[in-house]
C-alpha cells in the first residue's frame, strides 16, 4: 500500500463513482504525483491489491456497468451494508425516507423508472419533519447531483452508484419485488423482458448475448426476442469521444 494507492483511494472516494476511462486517468495521475519512475500497474491488479487491504475494513472497490449502455464503472462500496448507510450522514431523516419511497417505486415499476409525480405524491407519508412538494423536488435534485438517482424526462431511476452500493441491501429488503438479470444474475432495475416467459436481461447483457445473432431468441423459452438489440459498449469509441470532451474542457478552463 503506497501513496499512489492512497491518493487513488482518496480521489475515488471524492467522486463516489467513476467510469473506467476516468479511473485509468486517475490511476496515471496518482503515479505521476507520487512515483513517476514506477511502471503503471495493470488496472485490475492495481485494484485487487487495494481491495486486499480494504478487506479488513469491509469495503471494496467494486466494478459494475451502467444499465443503459454498459459503460464500466467503479465505486467504493460497503460490504456489510445494514441500510442506506453511505447516504445516512448526508441527508436528513425525511430525505432518506423520500429516497426509500422512490427506491420502492422504482423497484416495483415495470420500466425501472418512477415518475416525479408519483414520488412527490408520497410526501405526506414521510417520516421526520414535514416536507412540502417543492422541497421534495429539490431533494430529488440533490439525489441526482450526488449520483444516487438519474433523471430522464421527469422520471427517476437508480444511478449505477446506488446499484453498486445498495444491491445487497435491496435484495435483502425487497426479496419478492426485486428483479434479477437472467444472464449475469445481478440486480436488474432497467432492462428488457421476454413477453412470453417474463425473464429479464440488462441491456448490455442483451447486447453481449445476442451479439451478431440475426435471430435472437429467448434463452429460457426460445421464443423470438421482440426487442431491439443494443450495441455492445466499445471502449475505443468512448475514448475518442472523451478525449475531445477533455480537450474542450481544459481549453475552456485555461482561457481566463
Amino acid at each position, binding site marked *: 500500500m503506497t501513496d499512489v494507492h492512497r491518493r487513488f*483511494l*482518496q480521489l475515488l*472516494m471524492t467522486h463516489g463513482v467513476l467510469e473506467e476511462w476516468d479511473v485509468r486517468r486517475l490511476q496515471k*495521475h496518482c503515479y505521476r504525483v507520487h512515483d513517476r519512475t514506477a511502471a503503471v500497474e495493470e488496472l485490475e491488479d492495481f485494484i485487487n491489491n487495494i481491495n486486499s487491504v480494504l478487506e479488513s475494513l*469491509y469495503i471494496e472497490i467494486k466494478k459494475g456497468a451502467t444499465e443503459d449502455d454498459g459503460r464500466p464503472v467503479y465505486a467504493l462500496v460497503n460490504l*456489510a451494508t445494514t441500510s442506506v448507510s453511505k447516504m445516512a450522514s*448526508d441527508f436528513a431523516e425525511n430525505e432518506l425516507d423520500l429516497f426509500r419511497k422512490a427506491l420502492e417505486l422504482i423497484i416495483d415499476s415495470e420500466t425501472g423508472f418512477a415518475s416525479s409525480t408519483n414520488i412527490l405524491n408520497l410526501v405526506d407519508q414521510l417520516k421526520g419533519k414535514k416536507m412540502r412538494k417543492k422541497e421534495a423536488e429539490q431533494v430529488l435534485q440533490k439525489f441526482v447531483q450526488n449520483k444516487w438517482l438519474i433523471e430522464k424526462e421527469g422520471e427517476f431511476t437508480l444511478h449505477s452508484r446506488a446499484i453498486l452500493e445498495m444491491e445487497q441491501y435491496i435484495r435483502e429488503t425487497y426479496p419478492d419485488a426485486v428483479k434479477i438479470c437472467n444472464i449475469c444474475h445481478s440486480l436488474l432495475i432497467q432492462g428488457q423482458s421476454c413477453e412470453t416467459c417474463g425473464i429479464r436481461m440488462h441491456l448490455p447483457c442483451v447486447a453481449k448475448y445476442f451479439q451478431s445473432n440475426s435471430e435472437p431468441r429467448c434463452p429460457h423459452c426460445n421464443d423470438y426476442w421482440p426487442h431491439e438489440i443494443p450495441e455492445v459498449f466499445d471502449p475505443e469509441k468512448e475514448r475518442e469521444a472523451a478525449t475531445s470532451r477533455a480537450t474542450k474542457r481544459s481549453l475552456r*478552463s485555461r482561457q481566463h
Partner: protein
Amino acid sequence: MLQKPESGALPSPQAEGEKDGSRDGETQTLTASQKEVPSPFLQESPNEDLGARREEGATASSLTPKGARTLAAKALARRRAYRRLDRTVAELVQFLLVKDKKKSPITRSEMVKYVIGDLKDLFPEIIARAAEHLRYVFGFELKQFGRKHHTYILVNKHKPLEEEEEEVEEEDLGGDGPRLGLLIMILGLIYMKGNSARETQVWEMLRRLGVRPSKYHFLFGYPKRLIMEDFVQQRYLNYRQVPHTNPPECEFSWGPRSNLEISKMKVLGFVAKLHKKEPQHWPVQYREALADEADRARAKARAEASMRARARARARATDRAGIYPW
C-alpha cells in the same frame, strides 16, 4: 461470503506517556494520548485464566468433556467479541470518512451515538485502531483538538493546500483549487497583519480582487457563505468579535485546520511571490515563520519516534497473529 482473516491475538495498544507537540496548544496527534483500558474482550482477565487452569488442574492430565466444552465456548465468545470489535472499527472508519467529506469536525459523542454504542468503554482502543487504518489505508491523520480533546478532524497527509503542478488535473478530477486559493489569500492577509485581520480588511482585499460578499462568483459561489460559514465550520478560519470595540468589530485568525495543513513559511512564500519579493523582505514575519518551522520539525521528530516505537511493538505482536499484509 465475506472472507476475513481470522485473528488469533490482537496487538494491544501501547500507552506511551509522551504527547505529540501541539501547534498552538490546541491540537494533538491521536497516538499516545489514550490510556490503556483493561477490556474484557482483549485481555484475558486473571480470573478467567485461573478458572481455566483450575479446571485443568482438577482433572489431572486431560480435560473432562465438560471442561473442554466450557473452554471451547469461551474461545468462541472471544472470537465473536473480536469480530464485533473489528466490525465496529470498520464502521467507525467509514463514519469518519463520510463525515470528513463535509469537513465538519466530528465529536466523540457523535461517534458513540452512531457507531460505537455499548462498546463505549472500548472507545480508546477502537479509535486508535481506526486511526491506524485511516493512516495506513487512506493516508489521513486523525487529529484531536478542542479544549476537552473530544473533537476530531481528518487531515490529508498529502497536503492539499500546497501548490501542485498537477493542480489543473486535480480540478478536473474533483479538487477545490480556486476555493483553497482564496483561502490562502485570506490566510496570507491574516498572517501579514500579525496573525489576525479585521473582517473589514478581508472584504477590502477581496473587493480589490473583484470579489463581493453577496454577489455570486463563478469560481467561489457566494463568497460570504464560503468564508463566514464553510471555512469557519471546517476550522480553516476562526471568527470572533473583538472585545471592547464599538461599534462591534469582528476579526479572523487562522483556524486549527489551517495550522495543520499549511505552514507560516509556506504562506509567507506565497505572499512574497505575489509581490515579486523574497520572504526575507518582511523580517518580522520571516523570523516568526522560521520559529514555526523549527517547532514543526521538533513535533514531527517526536511523532516519528513514537510511531517507530509503536511499529516495533506491533511487529512483535503481529509476528504471532499475522494480521496486516505489509
